[in-house]
């Protein structure tokens, strides 16, 4: 079975809206780092509000892979680099934490595919200028890019392919995941919006555009 490395966000969102079986439908095994497993299971299982979601993820039985010593070292280096890409007059901006960088490094082992709903690390890879503009706008100060750090980061994870929970579910839709629904196009739209409201970094317009395109066919 092919494997897909996942960060916490997509698993939590998919669990919350009862779409975790998309992985068995697609015959993909989910792989997570120990810190992601802690976030999606070990921690929420102790909180009443998120206990049920945690149990559903436990039932999914994701594979938990630790980083090797060299991967750990790479992750630490990558973390330092990413948190030195953007800087203001106060110094470098800390924008990511170790856990998401660990997931990125682990995904290098598995087809360089990473399932991640939050947008910061994804934008570092795909559109650092957009992230820089956002930081500048919100801080009300200039934010510059350390090109050397950015180039080094791109050298390590520049060809990582990041997908979100909405993308996995959309792919599954095209494979027939919603065929049992009388109105599968509506089911797709409902599922994508449910994921968006659960925190997946996707805009309303992006969903509407995709759903419209699928409805036309």
């Amino acid at each position, binding site marked *: 079975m*092919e494997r897909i490395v996942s960060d916490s*966000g997509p698993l*939590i*969102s998919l669990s919350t809206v009862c779409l975790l079986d998309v992985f068995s439908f697609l015959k993909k095994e989910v792989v997570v780092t120990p810190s992601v497993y802690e*976030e999606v299971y070990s921690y929420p299982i102790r*909180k009443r*509000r998120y206990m049920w*979601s945690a149990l559903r993820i436990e039932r999914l039985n994701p594979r938990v892979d630790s980083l090797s010593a060299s991967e750990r070292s790479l992750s630490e280096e990558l973390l330092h680099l990413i948190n030195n890409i*953007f800087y*203001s007059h*106060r*110094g470098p*901006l*800390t*924008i*990511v*934490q170790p*856990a*998401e960088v660990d997931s990125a490094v682990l995904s290098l082992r598995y*087809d360089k*595919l990473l399932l991640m*709903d*939050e*947008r*910061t*690390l994804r934008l570092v890879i*795909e*559109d650092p200028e*957009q*992230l820089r503009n*956002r*930081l500048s706008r*919100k*801080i*009300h*100060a200039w934010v510059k890019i350390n090109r050397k750090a950015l180039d080094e980061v791109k050298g390590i994870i520049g060809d990582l*392919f990041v*997908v*979100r929970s*909405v*993308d*996995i579910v*959309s*792919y599954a839709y*095209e494979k027939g995941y919603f065929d049992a629904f009388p109105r599968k196009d509506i089911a797709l739209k409902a599922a*994508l919006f449910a994921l*968006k*409201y*659960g*925190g*997946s*970094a*996707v*805009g*309303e*317009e*992006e969903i509407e*555009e*995709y759903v419209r*395109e699928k409805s036309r066919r």
Partner: protein
Amino acid sequence: MKRAAAALKKEDPRMLREIAKELIIEAAEEYNREKASEAVISYALSKILSKVHIVNDRRWHEYKRALIDAIERDYSPEKITAIISSLDEEMGNFVRSTLDKARLKMAAEAYGMGLSLRASANLTGADIHDLADYIGETKIHDEEEYSIDIRKRVEGLKRLWRG
């Protein structure tokens, strides 16, 4: 926090919200948890002041005095948060505490600036699950441009998984 004490004395929730916003921007820029804590406190105080049933309660003045003291004399975030928690327990109406809501709100501000979900949650002490839910209800992601949309990512998956 002197400005926060002044705003609290005047019972000005708007000023406290402005102070909170300024503090969280600085906190995010420096990744400074102490400043983030001050932002959380300022925002929590603004929420308390906006609750009519609290400020009209006869117990409010005692709490207000204790809060101002805790801010002005030997500033102690732990003492302030203990007072707010006690006030919440006595007079609050919701399962989620005023401080938790303030941590969420300030974390969402940090996320809106560009920090990752985890970085934002760790900065203010917000729960990451709660933060993801909260952000989902905002328009933060609607403001973003998308160069690689759902269709392109699905096409990428088709290429990778050969169908």
